[in-house]
């Protein structure tokens, strides 16, 4: 029993307890005997009645009663007799519920009886029982489940049930079960567009007023805050998925080359329209589309690509996501630009358009409905002189040798374009969202600062929601002010509620990334250029020592070729899979604890240089991300030769399965992994060299 202290038994208590136990033992033995011998006499039934009153959890006794009921029913023909039999059963349930209002067996027995549909249901009796039980315990979820069953069974309109939730909430604001039921009923009514529920805006405005009363009455009660979060989600996300970024940007003029031009002198200013064309197969140009929520359905018919290059070819779009679910924010297609017949300085143009189509849908079924059209041109240089891509890196890359961007370089040379695609519908919707949320913002800013963590968290969420809405269809720079205020709130929350620190740190990291990248002018101080012999210069972004635990807003970094995230607190790098141009990545000195956490890197065709040193890989026996990515644990991994290959080299496949699955999908030239527990494991180096035969440098030393 809950909340009762344990006390040693007194002798009288011991004797009474023994007698009680003996009685129960007898009953259980007898009922089981009757059950096995199919004895359904009145006497036998009586015994089961006594047993269930004493111990409603004896599930076999409930089964026995069902069998007895069915057996005895066969001998009854008049409705009155049948009703009486049913009543007997209902009474057993009521008495059992008196003993334990949360007995699964009892509740189900009642449901099973009603479902037999042998007699009309006594509406009053059923709802009367429920009212009584929910008065005693308004949170009894068995009761609420039964109520939902009954309402559906009896055809009670949802509007009436909505009134009931209102009654319960008025009784006591702290009734999460009632708020929960309210959210279910409202969603149904709105989806079905029932009378009085046609306008989402009107309904949600009313709900905001209702919940705000609850919140201001008792800010320490959780129920209202969770309901408020739901309302916020309903009023801040656009109905339909939006395209928010793409690479290359509309109107871009790219010059593709991998090697440094032969006649390039040291003091020739580098051309920022040069893109290093690096990939496993030579000469592939990725084209990336990024949506605000996961979508599926990008096919050659829903997204058409026209170019002199690809006449008659079908372009396949691939979702880029850690999970293989078919839905993704980020989609890519690869344009083959090698084997071209061209003369120097010939330009090719590529046009991408999304016509009116119903194919692209979000998880909830909303359609992408903004037809668009983009064009970019590119000029291939020196493509034919590409040797095997891995031979292009002749010396190990150092992370400290980048040069600052020359002052004449303007941000627009970096190929990033935040799409300003909106249509009238979205703007209309956004206007209402913004008005509603601005009201909420004002209200919450006025809440007395009693250090309520929920108040601060909600205020932060409101700020970020407003930031998102404001920047829809206009410049990202509008977000800065909101981000700053939200950052302050998250810093407060980390101090105020330290047991949930990690959650706030993650949220804070996202806001920080938003703030840094929303304004290209100020972001430039994090950008530089790595000039290497032989290669076209690489764009280098450094986001070190920012206490980042998580990555976000990757759609603004699609152009990055060299990324330094070292000296942060990263536990995950989800999102990085969108960076299709990434050649070099430094995640050293972070908190990455497994190879499955590095799954995003397996989607990068160009990744050649990786620094994983000083993380936590191999430190903990349990790999905490193994269910999130396809793995043997989630029954989504296929057998492959990589396992066999490793077994031949006496590598323990059971121990290293995640490392094997990782290295099999990358082709690195340079790797750093010292300072991880796994570095000390026998055979780990062999594994890496076996699966990445092109590797040249391991932890700074030459492999061959």
């Amino acid at each position, binding site marked *: 029993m809950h909340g009762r202290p344990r006390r040693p038994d007194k002798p009288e208590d011991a004797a009474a307890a023994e007698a009680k136990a003996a009685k129960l033992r007898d009953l259980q033995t007898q009922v089981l005997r009757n059950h096995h011998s199919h004895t359904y006499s009145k006497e036998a039934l009586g015994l089961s009645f006594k047993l269930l009153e004493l111990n409603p959890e004896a599930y076999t006794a409930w089964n026995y009663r069902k069998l007895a009921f069915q057996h005895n029913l066969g001998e009854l023909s008049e409705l009155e007799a049948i009703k009486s039999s049913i009543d007997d059963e209902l009474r057993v349930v009521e008495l059992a519920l008196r003993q334990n209002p949360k007995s699964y067996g009892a509740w189900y027995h009642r449901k099973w009886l009603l479902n037999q549909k042998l007699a009309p249901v006594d509406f009053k009796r059923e709802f009367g029982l429920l009212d009584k039980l929910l008065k005693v315990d308004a949170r009894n*979820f068995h009761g609420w489940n039964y109520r939902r069953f009954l309402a559906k069974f009896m055809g009670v309109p949802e509007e009436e049930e909505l009134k009931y939730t209102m009654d319960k909430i008025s009784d006591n604001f702290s009734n999460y079960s009632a708020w929960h039921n309210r959210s279910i009923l409202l969603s149904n009514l709105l989806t079905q567009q029932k009378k009085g529920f046609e306008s989402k805006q009107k309904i949600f405005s009313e709900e905001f007023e209702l919940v705000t009363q609850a919140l201001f009455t008792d800010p320490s009660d959780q129920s209202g805050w969770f309901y408020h979060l739901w309302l916020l989600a309903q009023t801040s996300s656009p109905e339909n998925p939006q395209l928010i970024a793409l690479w290359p940007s509309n109107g871009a003029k790219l010059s593709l080359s991998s090697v440094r031009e032969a006649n390039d002198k040291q003091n020739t200013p580098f051309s920022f329209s040069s893109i290093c064309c690096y990939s496993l197969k030579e000469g592939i140009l990725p084209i990336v589309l990024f949506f605000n929520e996961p979508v599926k359905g990008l096919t050659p018919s829903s997204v058409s690509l026209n170019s002199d290059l690809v006449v008659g070819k079908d372009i396949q779009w691939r979702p880029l996501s850690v999970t293989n679910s078919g839905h993704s924010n980020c989609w890519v297609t690869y344009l083959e630009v090698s084997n071209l017949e061209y003369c120097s300085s010939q330009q090719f143009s590529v046009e991408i358009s999304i016509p009116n189509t119903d194919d692209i849908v979000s998880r909830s079924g909303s359609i992408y409905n903004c037809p668009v059209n983009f064009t970019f041109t590119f000029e291939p240089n020196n493509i034919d002189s590409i040797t095997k891509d891995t031979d292009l890196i002749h010396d190990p890359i150092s992370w400290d040798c980048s040069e600052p961007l020359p002052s004449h370089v303007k941000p627009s040379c970096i190929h990033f374009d935040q799409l300003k695609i909106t249509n009238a519908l979205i703007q209309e919707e956004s206007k209402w969202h913004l008005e509603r949320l601005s009201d909420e913002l004002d209200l919450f800013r006025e809440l007395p600062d009693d250090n309520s963590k929920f108040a601060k968290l909600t205020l932060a969420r409101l700020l970020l929601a407003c930031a998102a809405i404001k920047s829809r269809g206009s410049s990202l720079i509008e977000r800065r002010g909101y981000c700053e205020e939200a950052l302050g709130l998250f810093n407060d929350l980390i101090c105020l509620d330290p047991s949930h620190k990690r*959650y706030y740190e993650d949220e804070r990291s996202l806001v920080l990334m938003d703030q840094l990248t929303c304004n290209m002018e100020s972001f430039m101080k994090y950008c530089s250029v790595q000039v290497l012999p032989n290669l076209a210069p690489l764009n280098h972004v450094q986001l070190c020592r920012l206490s980042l635990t998580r990555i976000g807003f990757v759609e603004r970094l699609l152009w990055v070729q060299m990324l330094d995230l070292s000296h942060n607190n990263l536990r995950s790098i989800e999102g990085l899979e969108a960076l299709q141009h990434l050649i070099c990545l430094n995640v050293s000195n972070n908190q990455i604890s497994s190879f499955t956490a590095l799954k995003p890197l397996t989607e990068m065709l160009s990744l050649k240089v990786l620094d994983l040193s000083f993380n936590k890989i191999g430190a903990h026996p349990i790999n905490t991300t193994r269910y999130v990515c396809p793995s043997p644990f989630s*029954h989504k991994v296929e057998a492959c030769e990589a396992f066999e290959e490793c077994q031949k080299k006496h590598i323990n496949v059971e121990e290293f399965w995640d490392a094997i699955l990782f290295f099999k999908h990358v082709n690195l030239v340079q790797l750093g992994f010292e300072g991880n527990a796994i570095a000390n494991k026998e055979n780990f180096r062999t594994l890496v060299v076996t699966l990445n035969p092109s590797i040249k440098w391991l932890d700074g030393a030459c492999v061959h």
Partner: protein
Amino acid sequence: MFTGSTRPTHRRVRDSAPLAVGDSLERRAAASSLLAGFGSSTLRAKLLVPPARAMGEGGELAAEKHVRYIVTVEKKKDSFESLVMEHIRLNGAYWGLTTLDLLHKLDAVDAGEVIQWIMSCYHPESGGFGGNVGHDPHVLYTLSAVQVLCLFDRLDVLDVDKVADYVSGLQNEDGSFSGDIWGEVDTRFSYIVICTLALLHRLHKINVQKAVDYIVSCKNLDGGFGAMPGGESHAGQIFCCVGALAITGSLHHIDRDLLGWWLCERQCKEGGLNGRPEKLADVKFRCPFLKLFMFFITLSWHHRFD
């Protein structure tokens, strides 16, 4: 998919961290699944953490005391408290034996005796297990039976296909699962059947997609899951739904940020954990809640939830 036609040998995988209840069994299933296709047979994968350190940081667990408690409780069959739970003894066996296994003390019990008793709870006509001798078959006890047999590496005593057919036969048209022939539907049973079939390497016997779709239909607006569509979010139900989605590689259906935060908020000021908002903390929700990407929540499950 690793569906080796040869019966896989189960390896003992010892997990040192206390949170590995269902986890250690999953490792075993996955480990053997991984190698089934290669026909290897005698590898014993052990996590090389010696028992003394297996108790975690910050204080020693009085391992011997726990072992003694479990062994004596097993013998106390006649008190009222024991009798009232007589019908879930098979579940109790699982909890007790897994604890012993985590403490590396499974040899404190006689494996032969335990297995004999478990098989006496088996119903050969249906393929299911009852909670105790003479009690009707139900998936709740069938899973515990399979789990205990896995602990002892003795799935060979089972007619695996018969047991698999019993649980898979309880799937309904809409993808949900009944607990037994009487038809009670609950997402707990979805998890139980999926877990049982995963351990027996027979997941293909059910319509996995429909099972997943049903579970997703039980997702609530706070990111959590209830016992059935429309049911309130509850940590126990969430454990079952998330577990089932994890085993079937369908975790992408979960809004991790939303659910992760809801789960974090189950931790009360005193450090204990509750099952739903504004409820009291209870030791039965002994869950080392792991944030966001970490999904196997350990529950010391009671048959009934509060």
